[in-house]
């Protein structure tokens, strides 16, 4: 019947594993910002037809009339 020692030990080891994962997540800053990632995950990957280089160099662009 000593299998129960084994089973309980395994379950504790698994639990400790999750606990360590939690501590690492906190340390990594995952709990510092709990809002932005929830928005970020909803952004679609856009279908970008061509890799675009910045067309207008912003800081120099003066208001153009019409493209």
């Amino acid at each position, binding site marked *: *019947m000593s299998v*129960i*020692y084994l089973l*309980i030990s395994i379950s*504790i080891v698994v*639990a400790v594993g999750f*606990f360590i994962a*939690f*501590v690492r997540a*906190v*340390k990594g800053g995952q*709990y*510092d*910002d*709990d*809002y*932005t990632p929830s*928005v*970020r995950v*909803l*952004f679609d990957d*856009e279908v*970008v037809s061509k890799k*675009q280089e*910045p*067309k*207008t*160099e*912003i*800081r120099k*662009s003066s*208001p*153009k009339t019409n*493209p």
Partner: protein
Amino acid sequence: MDTHSCFHCGLEVIKKEEIVFDGKSFCCKGCQTVYEIFTDNGLSSYYDFEKMPGASPQAVNGKYDFLDNEKIAAKLLEFEDEGTSIVSLYIPHIHCSSCIWILENLHRLHRGIGSSQVNFSEKKVRIIFNPKETTLKDIVLMLCTIGYEPYISLENYEKGKTASDRSLIYKLGVAFFCFGNIMLLSFPEYFETEEFWLDQYRGFFRWLIFALSLPSFLYSASGYYVSAYKSIRNGMFNIDIPIALGIIVMFIRSTVDIVLGYGQGFFDSLTALVFFMLVGRLFQQKTYSFLSFERDFKSYFPIAVTQIKAQQEEVSVPVYDIQKGDRLLIRNQELIPVDGILISNDCQIDYSFVTGEADPIHKKSGDKVFAGGRLLGQVIEMEVLSSVSQSYLTQLWSNDIFQKKNESHRRSITDAISRYFTPALLLIAFLGFSYWIFIDANTAFNVFTAVLIVACPCALALTAPFTLGNVLRIMGRQKLYLKNAGVIEQLAKADMIVFDKTGTITTSKASDISFKGKPLSAVELSYIKNLLRGSNHPLSRRLYDFLPVAELRIVHGFEEITGKGIEGIIDGNCIKLGAAAYVGYETSKTTQTAVHIAINNDYKGSYVFDNQYRKGLEQLFNSLSKNYDIKILSGDNDGEREQLEQMLPKGTELLFNQKPEQKLEAIRKWQETGHNVMMIGDGLNDAGALAQSNVGISISENVNVFSPACDGILDATEFSKIAYFLKLSKKAITTIKMSFTLSLLYNVVGLGFAVSGKLSPLVAAIIMPLSTVTIISFVTLASNYYAQKLKSKTGRA
């Protein structure tokens, strides 16, 4: 009115100025340009996430030149290396998902930006860029062009990286880990005791549970031991004493139980208790990370100013490097960072934020100018008299009385109850013990510990955090941001409300003047302006500033009739300005302030002044005056005394010409007469009063930018809701009291089990979570109900 909203920023479009581009309408050239930039770079999805998310870009010419100074730029960077630099910028405009999206796609707009990440709750964007391809200044300017201007102040210059305090999260994690595992392991013993398996492995299970409870007992609950110890040393009985006592007794009793084989102990309840209590703490600890309640002058000051070196060369220097004798160049709308002497010609300086004076101060060449004023008008030069740390404003601020003091002396409602609770609890425990000791020593020991265990005021201690935490969130959603939950109790206790005038009950935005009537010709306008020149009436001064510049004309026969108006003859035309009756015009009585005009007895129309007092002010004063003493404490002169007296209930005390120290003194005096004072102010001149008052609320047109140290920040648009917030805080306290009764009932039931010596671990394991859950749901529902009810009531009123 024929208006609709700008596609980019959502402001109303005025038909005359509308720009139609690409089938969309924009309110100004700026908005259209931003739209163009985004569409040109394939970033038009910006407009898909949120409707009208943008802000129109403001002119920034020269404002960020100081970023050319490498020393300053380097101070702002978080990290700097050969090919990578990292900077975190605070951008007040961040408010929606579109903002997050565009700011995380900056690399598509600007060469040299590697990646960027937004922290929404702090309103910060962290940009990683290549310093070889771009500079910090270019990035900041680029952000300005797309309407996301960062806010850079002296505060950024000094601060190191602040590590956020994560200990509560760790403690909570540990507590939950222990709690969950122990619950699972103790389950078998709740039901069966005689089974073969359990008998066989009972010791193993119990010692494993013991081992698992250690981290929770030693680490997670450690905060309660420290707090209890501190409060005993201060001679106060706070709620943490019975909690700490309960936890420790529970642990010792349970250990004794399993060592001697009496039973399984209360480890399950112990860890559950610790976990629930920590959840309560986390709930109460709601913070608005994008706001700071401890701001000082540093976040108000610029980081650098323009210095004029010999040979008229202009360079940006950090504010701290300014020396006595330096020459500085201050542009329109810039802040004067140090005391000095004006070298240029006359100028107007707006000191409203520092002194509370509503009207700009006129300074002549050679006058002394003090730090903290904002320049209006042309560029000026000044010579520095003292460095930043020596300047009046800085000295004033560093004064100890201006620091918001520690709140340890404030007794919270929970502590007030525990003053009676703790002694009563100990009394019952000893009575039970002394009764049973004559019957059975063993039971006596059991009863004594059981009382302390079951009475451990978990539900009691959770009441306040959950109620106040919930109300804190409700208020936060309505734009009153409180520093912590304790402020709500102070709000409920206040019985006197002191208002500052400038910027608090008046808006700091320049009030609008509009003309109603027949259009005036340029010549007529110049007549009016010339006539106004001679009058010192506040309305005349404001109208004079509003009218366009006109050539000088000679006024004959100028006459001012107090309370009526002015008249004079210019170029043979008789001009009359003033009250409707005075100029010969019958008007229906309106509350609006207006200056009527008649030229040669021909009525032309009137200039209508938008009331500069905040909306709903009179109603607010009326509803507040029933329950509160109202005072006005202003740094301005008493020019508006009459107007204010009309609006305020009779007999209200009005104090004018108050210096910051005098304001503080006035508050202290009222407090000494036994009042709980709530101060509502906005500027640096109120800082002392806000700190001295029992609860200081600062009104802010833009909560993101600046407010003095205070207990709470209220968005100016919600000013009229002050009465509602005060009522809500009172209801919160009522809720807490009701819930205290409820939790005491649980304690009575538990104590019944305890003193009769029948408290089994199973009963404890049921009572504890049950009471916690009912209390939490009760206070949450009750406070939400009150918030709703009050809201609909004030909405109807």
